[in-house]
């Protein structure tokens, strides 16, 4: 096992455990949110490991730095301190959901992922993950979806104003 593999395994272990933390270990919403922050932060490093600097730092900035702060803000504002989920009864669907999810994941792993384990890396150039390269493509070939995204964000703004303004 090489150093890179070891580093990835550590990152992946933290990532997967924190993902589990969001669902299982997080007794209340704040804990879940913190686990999710950890997960997103680690994911940023996984992106670095894949050679995508720009996306990794954007991941940390957008998810860990902006989206999760909003989540925490809303959670605290709504005082989810004494979360009802802490005393959630173990209903029937809980183990069933886990079983179903695990079965699905394992079958996918078996049929889809495992055949790829020996695939070598393709000759992707040095341009991979460079901000300039991504910018060039984003603003030329992908300019139409880029504009669509601007409509999407406009909808986000107008929609949240519609949902939050005081005049009813």
């Amino acid at each position: 096992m090489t150093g890179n593999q070891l580093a990835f395994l550590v990152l992946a272990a933290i990532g997967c455990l924190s993902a589990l933390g969001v669902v299982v270990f997080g007794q209340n919403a704040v804990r879940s949110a913190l686990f999710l922050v950890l997960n997103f932060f680690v994911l940023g490093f996984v992106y670095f490991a894949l050679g995508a600097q720009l996306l990794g730092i954007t991941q940390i900035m957008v998810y860990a730095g902006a989206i999760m702060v909003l989540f925490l803000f809303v959670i605290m504002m709504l005082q989810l301190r004494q979360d009802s989920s802490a005393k959630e009864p173990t209903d029937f669907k809980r183990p069933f959901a886990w079983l179903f999810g695990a079965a699905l994941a394992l079958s996918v792993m078996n049929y889809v992922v495992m055949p790829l384990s020996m695939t070598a890396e393709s000759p992707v150039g040095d341009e991979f993950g460079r901000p300039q390269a991504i910018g060039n493509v984003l603003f030329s070939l992908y300019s139409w979806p880029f504009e669509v995204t601007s409509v999407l964000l406009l909808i986000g703004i107008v929609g949240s104003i519609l949902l939050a303004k005081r005049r009813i």
Partner: protein
Amino acid sequence: MNIPQWIEGLANGTEAVGPIPGPILLAVVKVLLLVLPILILVPGLIWWERRLLSWMQDRIGPNRTGTITIPDKAPFLRGKKIRFFGLLQPIADGVKLFLKEDITPADIDRKIYFIAPAIALFPAFAIGGTLPWGAIRAPFEQGVSGLYRFLTPVANVDIGILYVLAISSLGVYGVVLAGYSSNNKYSLMGGLRSSAQLISYELAMGAALASIVLATGSMRMTDMALEQEKPLWGFIPAVQNWFILTPFGLLSALIFLICMVAETNRAPFDLPEAENELIAGYHTEYSSMKFAVFFMGEYAAMFLFSGIFAAVFLGGSSLLPVNWEHLAASVPSASGFFRGMAWFNYWAGPLVFLGKCAGGITFFIWLRATLPRLRYDQLMNLGWRSMLPLGLSNLIVVGFWVVATKLWGIGGGWATWGLVMSILVVFYLNILAGTRKEALSFGGRKVAMKDPAPRRAVTLVDPNKP
């Protein structure tokens, strides 16, 4: 052996110190060179803040600690006191903080409570990771050269300035979590205010930095430093093109400066710890060293934000915005002097940079002494209605400037800049005139008194309640 060559060998991995490979050693050295000055200077900064503040407020401030009284039996200077302007006060403070009783309030969220100061400290130090504190190019050489390129920045990555934004956006967690875990409604309020404030000002800060990125064409902070060595406005070769001297850069610098103060939770934006409303806000329940850690984080953040301001807008480690190399080439009679100045400018760079940081912190202190704290709605208004539109329109204008400069040369670029800027200003003023009434009454008493309906905002329930 030549030290620069040896360091180059370390960087290339051809040299090693015992069993430690060169690159790793160099990485450790780089980090230490960034972190140690901050750790050393923070006590000094505290002293400086207290002295300067008291001077500005016509007080004396701490001046006793470290006073040496000569005993009466001494051969000379009997009974005299030798004062060190209270320079030892920070050490006394540190000792006090260490020895103080460490109070842990009851019913707190223990894990988060203890981890919060660490979370606050981490981004404050990590933010300097891409900060160059020395000139990356030796004088009279082309491209990246010289000793400092091996020592600074810690990581010269493509995404330098984005890294700063990303890490600074993590700074809010320490505050929010401290507020949440303390089981104190004032702390919680402080945390909430802080998160709202940081989200609001991050946008404007991003816009301000993005316009500089657009003008530079790169997100590397060293590229920004190199860009600032070019001729001013594109046609005055004797003066360096510090971004604060360019029209759009000045605007960006102002926006960045204000956002920087907001991001570090300093006065007049220190609402998260407004003592007359929230006791001490998020760190009300923290005592002893845990409190000191918050304090240290705040000072480190101030220090490094000042450093970023210096690197992005104030020409990095250059002493004066003067292009010594150009002068040396064009004024043969004084060429020796200008050459000397160029080399002095290069080698004294780190000190100059520290000086600029100190200047930035002095500015912070000055602001604290001068301006009253903003009200919360004023803070939000400033962020969303002034800073953000200004930053965004600046970004648009810089975009026009870049394109026009490419198409029609320097003159066309500046003409386009003026045209678009004036159009935007007229537009903005029109909108402002349209919404002035509303803006004035937005948080003012008028509406508050006329509005009989109770706001259905969520009120905070006493956390002590089971």
